[in-house]
């Protein structure tokens, strides 16, 4: 069968993958409405984050969300968007606190979105007075200057928990270490492999692999987050099957 000139086999495969992903998300969202309350496996980082938010509110301490130095124009935007979802959930949960959460980022567009996220969250719950435009701040524009600019926020602003969610390099070790030294809980995940390795050693609660992308589902950000998590699980098994089949075919000399 000949494909139209505007459609390459790779393009068709990619488009089909996206459509199947989208279809699965819609299917799981619809079936989730009929059968709510299906349990997710326990990830201790999210359980501890929930407790940390409560403790921060009680103790009048601040929560800090570090959104990394990735831009919104690149592949790393996914992790920054997840970070914004976490920021939204934390801001909502800690809205009665005297010290509202602060978000730092190394990209100006992400910083603007963090301000917008905080503004919308406070407006939605009728606490517009809590909004401070400088709570969503740019800390530095290169990875190391971002790390250096984030350290004073952790040390000087009575932070009780730091969530690192976004694109980082190995410099994330400095931020996680600062959180550890100041006695705050450090929960961290990144899309970057070197950063994940560094966080495994330095963070109290590292999020490994795609656990970061499950944040919305665990923080009750909406049914579509759980649906997309289930769609990811299905497609992961499909990919495992394709890889194993490819390996078997290669072994048997068919490829």
């Amino acid at each position, binding site marked *: 069968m000949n494909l139209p*000139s*505007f*459609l*390459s086999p790779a*393009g068709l495969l*990619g*488009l089909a993958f*996206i459509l199947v*992903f989208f279809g699965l*998300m819609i299917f799981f969202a619809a079936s989730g409405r009929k059968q709510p309350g299906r349990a997710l496996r326990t990830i201790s980082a999210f359980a501890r984050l929930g407790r940390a938010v409560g403790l921060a509110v009680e103790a009048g301490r601040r929560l800090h969300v570090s959104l990394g130095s990735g831009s919104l*124009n690149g*592949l790393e*935007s*996914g*992790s920054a*968007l997840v970070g*914004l*979802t976490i920021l939204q959930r934390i801001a909502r949960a800690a809205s009665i606190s005297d010290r509202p959460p602060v978000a730092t980022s190394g990209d*100006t*567009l992400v*910083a603007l*979105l963090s301000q*917008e996220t905080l503004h*919308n969250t406070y407006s939605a719950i009728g606490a517009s007075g809590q909004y401070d*435009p*400088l709570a969503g*701040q*740019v*800390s*530095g*524009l*290169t990875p*190391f*200057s971002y790390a*250096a600019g984030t350290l*004073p926020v952790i*040390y*000087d602003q009575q932070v009780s928990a730091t969530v690192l969610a976004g694109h980082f390099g*190995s*410099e994330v*070790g*400095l931020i996680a*270490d600062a959180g*550890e030294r100041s006695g705050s809980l450090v929960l961290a995940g990144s*899309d970057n492999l070197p950063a994940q390795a*560094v966080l*495994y*050693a330095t963070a*109290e609660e590292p999020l*490994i*692999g*795609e656990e970061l*992308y*499950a944040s919305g589902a665990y923080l009750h950000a909406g049914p*579509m987050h759980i649906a*997309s*998590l289930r769609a*990811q699980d299905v*497609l*992961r098994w499909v990919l495992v099957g394709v890889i194993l089949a490819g390996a078997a075919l290669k072994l048997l000399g068919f490829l």
Partner: protein
Amino acid sequence: MKISVRLLLAVIVMAVGLVVLLGFFIDLPVLSVLRSVFLRWAVILAAVAMLVGLFNLAAVHWRKMGSRQPGSFYSAVLLISMVVTLVIGLFFGPTSTWSLWIFNYIQVPVESSLMAVLAVVLAYASVRLLNRRINLFSIVFLATALLILVGTATIPGLEAPGLTELRAWITQVPAAGGARGILLGVALGTIATGLRVLIGTDRPYGG
């Protein structure tokens, strides 16, 4: 009115996102043109956001200095450095001798020093890991890191037989396999996040 503005924002994001996504897979001239136009707009917006971000950085440190919070001296240093760099960049250009001097003799050494500090932090963190979370995975993690380090930077005269081969096997087989597995998970997570923004269930832009 507010709802209609939010709806309009969501519609714009969805439409632009859909065009860019389709343009990635389908080779139609109209989609290519629209895609490149939208991407150019995104670059312009990013440049404007850079200016806003600089003001934000200055405002954060101005407030910190004004309220005499801890570390306000460093905020003053940052603001003075920012103004000096900006003035030099504007008057002499970003590739002038003065601008390059600032870059080569201030920024690069400061960032290199931070990298050196990072090496110490990581060495200390690896020891602390055994105190904090002692389990099979932590031991495997540290043992692998040590093996790779020793295998990469061998001490003359003390090369253990087979160490270089072991290092190569670890990096090319189990580490590469694990990394690909993690990257597949990250790719699926990124697609899911993108689709949620595209269909408007995640709206960090305030729609």
